[in-house]
Structures are given as C-alpha cells and as structure tokens.
C-alpha cells in the first residue's frame, strides 16, 4: 500500500512536470509528420509510417525513462524531501519500488497516448493494423522498464549527470550486444572473454525490438513473447534488488 502511495505520488509529480508534455507533443508531431514524408516515397509508405511511428515512440520513451529516471532518487536527496519520507514507517526498498512503479506508470500512459496517435494516422492512411503492432508496443514498454531500472540503479550511488551518461551508454551498448559477441568471437583471450562477459551481463535490448516484425507483418509466437517478457522482468527485478542493497547502505547527507 505504501509502495502504491509513493508510486501514485511519483506519477502525479510527472504529470505536473512540463518537460513531459513538451516531449509528448514533440513525439506526436513527429508521428504526424510521417504523413508528409509518406507522400514523397509512395511505394513503401506503409512500412515507413510504421517505422517512423514506432521509432518515435521508442525514442521519446527512452528519453523520459533516462532523464526522469536518473532524477527519481537523486532529486529527492538533493531537495531533502527524502528526510521526511524516510522518517515515516517506509522501508528504503519500498521507497525505491514506489518511485520505480510511478515512472513505469507514466511511461505506460505516455506510450498509450502516442500509440493512439499512431493508430489515428494509420487509420486515415488506410494502413492495415495487425496484432503484432500491439505486441511490439508491449515490448517497447518493457524496454522502458529495463532502462528505468538501469537509471534508478545508477542514481542510487552516482550524480545525476554521471547516471545519465552511464544509462545512455548502457542503452546504446545494450542494442549492440549481439554484434559485440560476434565481434568477440573473432578475437582471442582476454578481449574475447570481456566481450562475451558483456554480452551476458548487459541487457540485450535488441530482443525487445519487434519493429522488423511489424513492418514485415511477421507475427511473433506467444511462447517467444513470453520468453522476452520473462527476460525483461527478471532483468529489471535484478537491477532493482541491486539498487535496494546499495540504497540501504547509504547516508542521506
């Protein structure tokens, strides 16, 4: 219950943040502008519109996940709001979990709004909508949740700026892990071990990317979807646990 109160308050904080509205409007404009682009490239327009639409939803969601995520905890410490909240009968892990769920809810609703925008565009352009589009949207939200957990983890022990850099790095590398591994397999000894290690430790974010399936109208079997979902949730849960352990140790000074 306390976790949900904190989550709701975090959600409310996000709602009252102007930055979020700016990003949302920007993303909707971007999705809308694919209409204009489409006229230029006739043949492939279905594919293009889906590509730009999902790409925008992903890009702006990741921006929010990182830049709101890194401030979730550090802002509370900086502004000293943490002093009163931690003096209430709330455990530190409950606080972290509440902040995390609050931002996750924001991202979910944000994605839903952008998805509606995309569907409107698709409808007016007579682009057929398949179930795989919704599956892809679900996986995008899951990716946001993993990235939010990464941002939260970094922000429990480093400054906001460093957290942003680290999280951004993880996001970029997380989309390249398969390449990293392939690259490593051409190497010997330490280099290979390091790249292999990175492949297993870093989140394999490309697994959440179903854009190709949507543009090519290839459905994803439920079993695969379940595996990806389980992977994402387990990864986020692990990060949150790690964050809780670190957060439990620290002084609020």
């Amino acid at each position, binding site marked *: 219950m306390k976790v949900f*109160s904190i989550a709701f*308050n975090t959600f409310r*904080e996000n709602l009252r943040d102007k930055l979020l509205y700016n990003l949302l409007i920007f993303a909707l404009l971007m999705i809308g502008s694919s209409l204009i682009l489409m006229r230029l490239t006739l043949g492939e327009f279905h594919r293009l519109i889906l590509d730009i639409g999902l790409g925008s939803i992903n890009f702006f969601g990741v921006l929010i996940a990182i830049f709101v995520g890194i401030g979730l905890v550090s802002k509370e410490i900086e502004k000293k709001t*943490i002093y009163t909240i931690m*003096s209430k009968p*709330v455990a530190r892990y409950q606080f972290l979990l509440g902040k995390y769920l609050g931002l996750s809810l924001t991202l979910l609703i944000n994605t839903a709004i952008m998805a509606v925008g995309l569907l409107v565009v698709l409808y007016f352009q007579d682009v057929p909508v398949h179930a795989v589009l919704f599956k892809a949207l679900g996986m995008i939200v899951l990716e946001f949740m993993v990235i939010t957990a990464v941002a939260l983890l970094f922000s429990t022990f480093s400054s906001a700026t460093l957290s942003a850099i680290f999280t951004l790095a993880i996001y970029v590398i997380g989309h390249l892990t398969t390449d990293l591994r392939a690259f490593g397999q051409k190497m010997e000894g330490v280099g290979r071990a390091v790249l292999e290690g990175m492949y297993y430790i870093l989140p394999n974010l490309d697994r959440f990317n179903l854009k190709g399936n949507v543009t090519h109208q290839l459905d994803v079997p439920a079993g695969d979807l379940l595996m990806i979902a389980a992977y994402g949730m387990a990864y986020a849960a692990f990060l949150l646990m790690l964050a809780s352990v670190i957060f439990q140790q620290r002084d609020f*000074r």
Partner: protein
Amino acid sequence: MSRIPSLALEHDVQIDQLRKVFKVGFWGRRVTAVDGVSFEVQRGEVFGFLGPNGAGKTTTIKMLMGLIYPSGGTATLFGRQIGDPVAKAKVGFLPESPYFYDYLTGREFLRFYGHLFGFFGTALDKRIDELLELVGMTPARDLQLRKFSKGMLQRVGIAQALINDPELVILDEPMSGLDPIGRKEVRDLILRLKETGKTVMFSSHILHDAELLCDRVAMIMKGKLVACGHVSELIAGDTTHEVEMVIDRLLPEALERIRPLTNKVVLQGERVMVVLSSQQSVDQAIDVVRSAKAKLVALTPHKASLEDLFIRKATGAQQSVEARV
C-alpha cells in the same frame, strides 16, 4: 554504567556513545561531527537539544531518524533499534529548514504522508483539516507548496510531523524562519503537546525558547556533550548573584566611592549603571546613593540563565581546543 531495564523502558529516546565521522572532500578528510554523545529523553518531557552552529545537533537527529548511519555507539527509540518501522510509526519528525514536494498543495502533501502511515478516507481528511487549522495554514490549504514562504513551509512541516498523532515529536529548529508571533505559536504548541502526554525533543540555539519550554536540556559543542540535566539545576550550579543598579543624578565624587565596590560601570549621560556582586557591596552602594541624594532608579538581581552557562561552556570548549593544538 549499568541501567535498570524497567527504568530504561521509560525512555523514549536513548542514545549511547553515539559517534559520526564524515569523510569530506576528495581525500576523504575525516570530520567528527558527533563524538561519543550519550543522553536519554524521558517519556512525557520537553527536551531541548542545544548547541551553537555546527555543534552536531542535526547530525545526531539524522542518526536518530535513520537517515545516516552512526560510525559508533547505539541509539534506540522506544527501546527499538533506529529504523524500526514500529518505532517510526510513533514518531513525528520535522527536519531542519524543511523542503517538501513543491508540486503538491498543502492538503495533497499531508494526505500523501497520511497514506504512508496507512491512514485513508474521511478520518484522514478530518485530521488534515484539524492540523491545518492548528498551524494556521487553513487559508493556504489548496496552494502549491512552491508558492509557500519559508515560515509557511515550517508550519506545514510541523503539521506533517503530527499527522500520525505521534507519541514522540522530534523537531530540528522548529522556530527558525518564523516571526515572533509564529515562534510564540510554536512554543504554545509544544506546551500543548506536552499537556497531552507527548514527548517533545527539539533542537535550537535560541536559549530563551529552551528556558521557557524545557524540562531538561542537553548541550552539545563541537560534537561533545558538555551539559545535560534539568534547566533549573544547570542554572543553579552556575549562579553568580549579580545585582544591577541604575542611578540618576549621581555626582562624580559619589561615583568614585561606589566604583571600588563594582564589577562594571556604565555611564549614559545623567544615568549610571553599576553591577555589584555581593550583598555587602549592594548595601554600601545604597548608603552612598542616599547620602549623595542621588536617585535610585532600579535594583535588579541579575538572573542566571542558560545563556550564561552556554557562553561559559562555549569559551571553555574553545580554550580546551586551543590547549590541544
């Protein structure tokens, strides 16, 4: 020192050899903010935690609230380890120069904190209205906290500390940022809490407030406890029995007869103020005043106060530091 367990139960706060060492700067230079402090706060009393700026009051309180971890020693609230949620449920806390969620209105803010104690619904709303009334913030209940003045924040800060009807209230400088009327209101509030059987511990460097309110005080300087006990006892051990005499129209030659009896002479035009330190010198001075046909305007015993003790301890602490260097 051994303590009788049954007696220990009467203590809402118990601090034993508490220490906090901060590492500061790039090289991790060590700063001892709290250095082996022990005291307890008894059930139902108003306890003042006094000391100059940088003495370690806030650091001690933050350790009590589980916001920072001690480097040594122990502390308990209601006989439970700090951080225990059962103990926290019975405590109200106002941090120093408080900051709150500035995007919330006064009412939303209090409601959120009520939820954290598991309070919901109309009972909570009623409690919030009462508290806003109590701290005089009813008119600002729907205003966002970002638009609050410093004193208004202090007031909602006090309201949030009382949301759970706590048995123990810990206030870090509750009077700071308040105007004289606000200070008086907080003093009255603290006394009202005491009347309803609550325990109040507050930190301050305004000794006058402490003297008016506290049953007992602890005085901390440079991280070390320098005095702890009942206000009256602490002052009694410190009395100087000085008397202040104000005289008008005292001729210079009469003044010269009084001067050897006094510690201090202050001339203000026609008026003379002298400080006398024994009953005998007071008697002699009065004789001189009478025979010189001067006018005795006032004769006031100089009351020993916490301030005298504070300043004496502060200079003592300063000297001991200099001696060490």
